């Protein structure tokens, strides 16, 4: 049976070239990068090379890149680091209702510790209204954190415009660019952001390595305390092969960016067109124009996402859903909720993400199976267009 993975926003396989770059650093070139002897300095140089590769992908200076263990850690560091460093300046943070949990739950934690957190509403397409941001700023605002590209619906934010608002008011601006990296052009200098989180496993690099871009001159407290690694700003023996892999993945993403965007967006558009023409009562969630090139978040009315997901899995197809039924807490997707999508529709949502290995044949297969699955589940369902919800 054909296996079609269409969940590249959840994670990506490591590319062959990336894995090959990593392998030597597990065994022969395994030295601790902090060690002074040759076995250590070889490792140090490998890390510095990777730093350059990641920096280049976002047009940062090498020394503005600080490796972490994940996008999650980068998000935690950005937020905790700023609120601690600026605690005498204020206790108010602004973020959005559609952030990744790495931001939202950090916000929740801070709210329990005396901070005020504003979670901005978004427009129906998932975009933040710059006027809403302006209106939310107070004298106590010390950090604005708005994600670059949303992981569920793929909406791309006007980061440059939002960062300019922060700059005008002298407020630190952070963006979670975990989904943006390798999928949209990123130039930190042009964007004017102070802090940016990225993660390797979304760009065909390994899981368990990320980075925080810290614009030169931005002061923030450390999050991970200990050894003198990463210019004394992030402690812990470096994940050497992981960092090397991130570097290689970033290099490939840099070289391949335009072709990647073209390829996945064409396939994604073809997929959406096919689905729309073959299945009724389907809607596309999010923005048409400002969208992650591989993302198709669709609602199939009258049926439930987890059921679709399982059926598709039986046919070798991997996708995800915003349905409450699939979440550990039985809460429907906070992102789709924030877009104003009614709960019953959220239940019927599926996220498909096209990636580099995806082919047209894969898409055709998925469309074919999807038609079957949707028809089957609709035939079982107690709701329908005619019967109503």
């Amino acid at each position, binding site marked *: 049976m054909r296996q079609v993975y269409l969940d590249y926003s959840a994670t990506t396989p490591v590319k062959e070239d990336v894995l090959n770059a990593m392998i030597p650093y597990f065994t022969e070139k395994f030295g601790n990068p902090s060690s*002074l*002897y*040759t076995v250590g*300095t070889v490792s*140090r*140089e490998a890390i510095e090379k990777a730093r350059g590769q990641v920096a280049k992908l976002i047009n940062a200076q090498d020394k503005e890149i600080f490796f972490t263990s994940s996008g999650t850690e980068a998000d935690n560091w950005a937020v905790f680091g700023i609120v601690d460093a600026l605690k005498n300046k204020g206790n108010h943070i602004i973020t959005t209702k559609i952030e990744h949990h790495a931001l939202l739950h950090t916000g929740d934690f801070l709210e329990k510790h005396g901070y005020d957190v504003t979670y901005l509403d978004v427009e129906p397409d998932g975009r933040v209204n710059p006027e809403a941001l302006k209106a939310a700023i107070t004298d106590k605002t010390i950090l604005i954190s708005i994600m670059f590209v949303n992981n569920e619906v793929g909406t791309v934010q006007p980061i440059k415009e939002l960062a300019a608002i922060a700059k005008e008011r002298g407020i630190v601006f952070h963006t979670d660019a975990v989904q943006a990296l390798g999928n949209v052009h990123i130039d930190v200098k042009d964007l004017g952001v102070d802090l940016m989180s990225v993660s390797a496993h979304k760009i065909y690099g390994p899981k368990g390595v990320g980075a925080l871009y810290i614009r030169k001159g931005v002061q923030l407290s450390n999050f991970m305390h200990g050894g003198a690694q990463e210019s004394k700003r992030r402690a812990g023996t470096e994940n050497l092969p992981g960092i090397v892999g991130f570097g290689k993945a970033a290099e490939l993403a840099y070289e391949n960016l335009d072709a990647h965007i073209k390829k996945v967006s064409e396939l994604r558009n073809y997929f959406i067109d096919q689905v729309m023409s073959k299945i009724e009562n389907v809607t596309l969630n999010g923005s048409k124009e400002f969208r992650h090139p591989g993302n198709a978040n669709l609602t199939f009315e009258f049926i439930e996402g987890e059921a679709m997901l399982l059926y598709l899995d039986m046919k070798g197809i991997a996708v995800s859903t915003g349905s409450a039924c699939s979440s550990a807490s039985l809460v429907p997707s906070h992102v789709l909720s924030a877009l104003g999508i009614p709960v019953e529709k959220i239940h019927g949502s599926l996220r498909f993400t096209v990636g580099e290995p995806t082919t047209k044949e894969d898409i055709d297969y998925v469309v074919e199976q999807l038609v079957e699955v949707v028809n089957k589940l609709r035939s079982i369902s107690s709701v329908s267009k005619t019967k109503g919800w």
Partner: protein
Amino acid sequence: MAMYNDKVMDHFMNPHNVGEIQGADGSGTYGSPVCGDMMKIDIKVENDVIKDAKFKTFGCGSAIASSSVATDMIIGLTIDEALAVTNKQIIDELGGLPAIKIHCSVLADHAIKSAIYDYAQKNGKTYKGLEGFDPNADEDEHGCEV
């Protein structure tokens, strides 16, 4: 070894002018083992020219390399010229040192001054380059924090 350049490594692995001079005309010690670096330098002087210099150093790679290159540099110089040698010149001669190791070159520069000071004391001489130099001054300048 990426920490030091080849020239530093060469002076460290094969240091020049190691040892002591029997009947030295001047002898100076600078630094302290507590700081991790202590250099002793002996000089032989004829007609105000340094004819020979030898050193012994307790210290790291860059302290040993600085000692080696500094003694090389002063052999053949007049006292006034030797007094004008700065740690910056020592670093340049070595083709650069890591920032954190700059203080090791200061050690060599001070040890030379100490040896000349000893020579001046023994021979009742005064040199412009020694004005304000105190061989027993606090060593805060070379970075020891102990």
